[in-house]
């Protein structure tokens, strides 16, 4: 997704002279093609994310469309108040690119594990929050959301995964990867690969699971979510994010507000007791977000429900 962004932003900038790309000194070996093609519209703001967002706010008010780029924690958490009081409050078209979906920077340690960005930004009315799960969806979302008048956040995974190309991004739709009858698994971003592998194993155990992602976390595809949740008595959410604030919270809000009879089984990060560095695979397993952990917990719930 990160590389898809790096390619697409060049195409967008070629069409639209208002586009400016700012980075907080990250994107080495990724953003150089843009910098070479549009040197006057590439600004390395240095390791100063608050200022980068402030500058983007001033640029957007002056008629430009700035994209600010960094590892997600640094483009969201550090300048959060600048985002709130700047592009959000003034409804300015600043695009925030957060690279690193959950544990993408696993071996870099806790400071680089991005686990609350979606929750923090989803809370803000007027903030568009997008989490694509494939490069194609990333490209499609970048094109479709180019003209949104307010701020947009893109959480972009760094890892390459072997997902099939899904449908183009559509803020009104879930992206369906697999139909099913016994349970719904909703995933956020690239971790859908674990959900798909889990669905495959559960199929062998006699349970048919529908797997979809929610690429537009805000605004959510409300109609489709209500429809999907109403068809199942069990829904699992899978996300590389704290279990509070992100996809599980979104789904539980809809279940509660609409009075839908569907049990939620949230898979997300719950504790800071086990802070470790490691690979994406290791950290997903540590926090119960890998395929086998999903199968074990969901199988137990589904067996219980069936009994």
């Amino acid at each position, binding site marked *: 997704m990160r590389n898809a962004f790096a390619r697409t932003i060049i195409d967008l900038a070629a069409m639209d002279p208002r586009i400016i790309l700012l980075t907080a000194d990250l994107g080495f070996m990724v953003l150089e093609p843009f910098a070479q093609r549009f040197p006057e519209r590439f600004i390395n703001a240095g390791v*100063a994310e*608050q*200022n980068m967002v402030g500058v*983007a*706010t001033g640029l957007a*008010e*002056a*008629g430009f469309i700035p994209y600010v780029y960094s590892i997600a924690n640094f483009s969201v958490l550090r300048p959060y108040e*600048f985002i709130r*009081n700047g592009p959000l409050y003034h409804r300015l078209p600043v695009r925030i690119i957060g690279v690193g979906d959950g544990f993408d920077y696993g071996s870099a340690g806790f400071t680089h594990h991005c686990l609350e960005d979606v929750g923090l930004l989803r809370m803000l009315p007027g903030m568009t929050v997008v989490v694509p799960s494939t490069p194609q969806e990333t490209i499609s979302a970048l094109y479709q959301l180019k003209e949104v008048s307010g701020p947009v956040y893109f959480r972009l995974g760094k890892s390459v995964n072997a997902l099939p190309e899904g449908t183009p991004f559509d803020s009104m739709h879930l992206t369906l990867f697999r139909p099913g009858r016994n349970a719904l698994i909703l995933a956020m971003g690239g971790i859908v690969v674990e959900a798909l592998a889990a669905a495959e194993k559960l199929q062998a155990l006699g349970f048919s699971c529908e797997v979809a992602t929610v690429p537009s976390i805000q605004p959510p595809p409300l109609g489709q979510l209500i429809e999907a949740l109403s068809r199942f008595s069990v829904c699992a959410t899978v996300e590389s994010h704290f279990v509070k604030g992100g996809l599980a919270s979104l789904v539980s809000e809809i279940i509660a507000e609409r009075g839908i009879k569907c049990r939620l089984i949230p898979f997300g990060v719950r504790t800071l007791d086990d802070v470790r560095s490691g690979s994406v695979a290791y950290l997903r397993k540590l926090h119960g977000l890998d395929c086998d952990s999903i199968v074990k917990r969901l199988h137990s719930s589904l067996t219980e429900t069936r009994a």
Partner: protein
Amino acid sequence: MFQSNLTGNGRVSDDLPKSIRRIILEQAHRANVGHIGSALSIADIIAVLYGEILNLPSRRDPDRDRFILSKGHAALALYAAFRILGWIDEEKINTYCCDSSLLGVHPEHALPGVDFCSGSLGMGLSIGVGSAVGGKLGNSSRRVFVLLSDAECNEGSVWEAAMFAAHHRLDNLVALIDLNGQQAFGKTKDVLDLHPLNKKWEAFGWHVREVDGHDCQALAQAMGKASAHADKPAVLICQTTFGKGVSFMEGQIPWHYLPMNEQQFAQALREIESGDGQ
């Protein structure tokens, strides 16, 4: 009636700062709120900006100068200028701090004339820097002025913006620092010493000038010339007196937050009108 305070020939009349101070006192008293000392501190700077310096053909002209009151807690001085310019009427300014008013203690973007909201210290300079970069990229003649408090320079983000502005040679950007030496809990030198502030800005690559923040002629001259230094942003360190114009407020920490009682209001108004406290 307030239009008469602007002479129309680009010069600040003597009455303009006085009118700003009078409105500050009247509104702070009516609303029974504080931040009076901070607003009085910048009354002359605001008078010079709106009376002479800012190029504002209209409030929506894309090439208009931008002004950001980064020390948003002194917004009452800004509202006073808006009232004098006729941008808000008497009825509207009398809603200051009332329910549903756009005129709160800190300026809201929804109020026409306020380009950017402020109130959270340390944000205005970054936004002003973006505005200045936008001006350069868009070949706009606009200048950008950002008024900061001295204690606001405690914020690290100010220095992020300062580094950036110098690196990008933003000579269309002017920072104004209201150096009254006071912050909420005491004197800046006791809370978190800024000294030597001029050398800090110089070291960050800015053109630095120190000016009497209550001398309108000197301020106007300094602001007019501030952009004459090609390739560098400019900072005017404005030596000011907290609570300027009201003897019992001048240099007195409590007037950061305190409202006035009837007696204090009457005395303050008398001093402003007679100029005794100045």
